[in-house]
């Protein structure tokens, strides 16, 4: 796994815009252009890109996260006992899995396109409702219904690229305009869902009350177990693809310097479209899994998750897909562990307190690399 496949911590103007000047590609002085050139070379040769000076900082980030998690677990074990701590950890893993799935998609889009996608939460809802329609409405089994939800959300994301984002980039729209469009798109998706399916809560055809007994008196809901298995499987597949697949390397090249990637012969339109397809598919899967775990689905549920997804993205290191993965899981654990110490009403707030504290210590997030000076 590379230290950071598309780190956004380096400040820049708007390289996604055609007006952005192309950066220098040569030299060995650690400038962004060098990173882009290295990634480009890696993309061409099929070998992993070399680590740069900032990787050391990311390594320190990992150690910091590991130390913090171990300390939290030790405190948990000492104060609440092994069974309670383990049960809360299992619960956190369930929540963290779909946080991570949602956050990785959000981070992919930001990494490649520098776009803060406020419609991402509603894409989760869209995927969940398509699966609901296929499962509860048309009687499909849950697995093909989930695949239907994933594909439909990927198609929606790709359609948004073709119909909105590509034309807007061609018109050299600024970041603020793009952000406002994502907010508008979020409302459009949500209201369309509400119009089609109503505002009443609905359910997938799943038994959300049964549970699997684990050793040591621990339990996990049957559906939740499948959520964890499917979610972690999908995350592993995405990580592998980003690390070893040609598309992943091309995405990294685009993330580092779009203009340079274009000059080097990478079909940037295809890669951007693929990024949207990936982000959409992950959002769809996160939507189905989270609604399956929660047991109830309303048109607002994705929007309600959005803040947590943003928190996971920022916590991990904005624009860093692996960071988003770690941030999502960590946020899930933190929320469930915190419920053992403070009133559960503050569970959501605790996640954000951790985010603020982390950013105070590591302003680039857990796995984000510091900007070059």
């Amino acid at each position: 796994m590379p230290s950071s496949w598309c780190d956004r911590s380096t400040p820049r103007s708007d390289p996604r815009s055609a007006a952005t000047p192309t950066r220098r590609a040569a030299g060995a002085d650690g400038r962004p252009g060098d990173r882009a050139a290295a990634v480009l070379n890696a993309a061409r040769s099929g070998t992993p890109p070399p680590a740069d000076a900032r990787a050391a900082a990311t390594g320190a980030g990992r150690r910091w996260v590991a130390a913090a998690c171990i300390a939290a677990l030790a405190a948990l074990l000492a104060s609440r006992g092994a069974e309670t701590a383990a049960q809360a950890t299992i619960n956190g893993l369930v929540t963290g899995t779909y946080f991570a799935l949602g956050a990785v998609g959000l981070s992919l889009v930001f990494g490649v396109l520098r776009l803060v996608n406020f419609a991402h939460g509603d894409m989760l809802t869209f995927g969940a409702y398509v699966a609901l329609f296929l499962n509860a409405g048309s009687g499909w089994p849950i697995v093909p219904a989930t695949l239907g939800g994933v594909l439909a959300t990927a198609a929606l994301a790709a359609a948004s690229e073709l119909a909105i984002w590509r034309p807007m980039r061609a018109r050299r729209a600024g970041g603020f305009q793009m952000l406002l469009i994502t907010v508008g798109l979020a409302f459009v998706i949500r209201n369309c869902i509400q119009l089609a399916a109503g505002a009443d809560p609905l359910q997938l055809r799943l038994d959300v009350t049964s549970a699997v007994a684990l050793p040591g008196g621990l339990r996990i809901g049957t559906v939740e177990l499948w959520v964890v298995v499917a979610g972690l499987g999908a995350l592993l597949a995405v990580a592998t693809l980003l690390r070893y697949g040609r598309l992943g390397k091309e995405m990294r090249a685009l993330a580092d310097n779009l203009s340079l990637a274009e000059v080097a012969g990478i079909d940037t339109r295809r890669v951007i479209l693929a990024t949207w397809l990936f982000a959409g598919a992950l959002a769809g899967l996160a939507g189905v899994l989270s609604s399956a775990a929660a047991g109830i689905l309303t048109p607002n549920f994705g929007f309600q998750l959005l803040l947590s997804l943003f928190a996971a993205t920022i916590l991990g290191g904005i624009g860093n897909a692996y960071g988003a993965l770690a941030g999502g899981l960590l946020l899930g654990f933190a929320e469930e562990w915190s419920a053992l110490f403070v009133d559960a009403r503050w569970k959501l707030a605790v996640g954000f307190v951790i985010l603020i504290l982390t950013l105070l210590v590591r302003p680039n997030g857990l796995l984000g690399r510091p900007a070059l000076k």
Partner: protein
Amino acid sequence: MTRARHATALITSIALILGIAAGGAMMTSGVIAAPSFTMTIGDLEPYTGDLGPLGAPADKAVKLATAQLNQAAKQAGLAVTFKMVTADTRSDPQAALSAARQLIDQGATCLTGPASTPESLAILNSITKARRIPMLPSASSTRLRTVDDGHTIFRTVPPDNLQARALVLAVKQQLGGAQGKTVAIGYQNSPYGEGLANTFKQSWTAMGGRIQGPFGYDPNQPSYDTEAAKIVAGSPDAFVFADFPDTFGKVSAALLRTGKFSAAKLFVSDALAVSPIPATIPAAALNGAHAVNAGSPTGTPQAQAFNTLYLSAPGPKRSALDANNFDSGILCGLAAVAAGANTPSLIATQLPKLSGPAGSPFTYLQLAAAMRALRAGTRIHYVGVSGPIEFNAQGDTSAGTYDLSTWKNGALVLVRQINAKE
């Protein structure tokens, strides 16, 4: 010019004398001039959202009340008609405010509903207090009485301090006493849930019982498994929940997943007293559980007649607070008749005068007679389906009758009635 002035003064004097004479005649006969107006009752109900299951039954009750008012006005020979307009509050304060504006724009001068305290507060602060429009919400939280409502809020639903007391009595009887018994409390983080949980805790501990929690949770949490594990820990003697259906659907699934939860030990508040069990709540979480909700004295003629009336009309079956909503609609209409005008501030002034033992008692079965009495200037006491309406100084009814019901095969069945004032 001088002649014209004299003529004007003469005509004015004659008109004044005739007016005074006519007024005197009316006063001596005890009959106030018959008004003629159409009154619009605005019904704010949560047809969708967290409280969705309560919307349709409440709407049906207010519709029935409007029909009864029209029928009675005709029988009483009054040129007054009543119409009802309705809007969905979506169980959301902002949507409720928008719905209230819509109804008031349509001419509503008295509001029945909404069903929750946050919705009621949003409407009160933005519209009804300033415009002196009376509102009869079915929200029961005591939080609603911590604000200055300008004497515009009246409740036919007893406040939650009485409901908490009814819950305490129900649990106490089930457990054979409170001394040493542990009750785990779960509640949704809202004025309703928090108020009920805290009041229950105070009453239960005062009786020598022990409390596990109370455990509050947010309705938008992604998971409730850790909270569920804390609630069932140590196998408490009973569980008490103050929640709304949507959130409880998610919480109850988590409770069942612990493998340590038994519906037979569960007592829930009125917002969850829905029948049949909604699809969003696992049936295993409620079948065998008990619910407490504001009830109607079952033996009275008006309660029996309302039961027949409600069940014979198309629409949903009987549900929690339907009788209270029916009474709210009737009170709106009677207050307008008493005011002799479709003016919100006058209706608000008349509402408290319809309650209390000072007046002659009338039930909805004698609505025409009640209207005639009001037009004759006689003070009446409306004895509602939900019990005698006796507003206190704050506008809350002091009736304390609660139904204790249990779910059998997905439907609520009345077990007995509890007088929370015992």
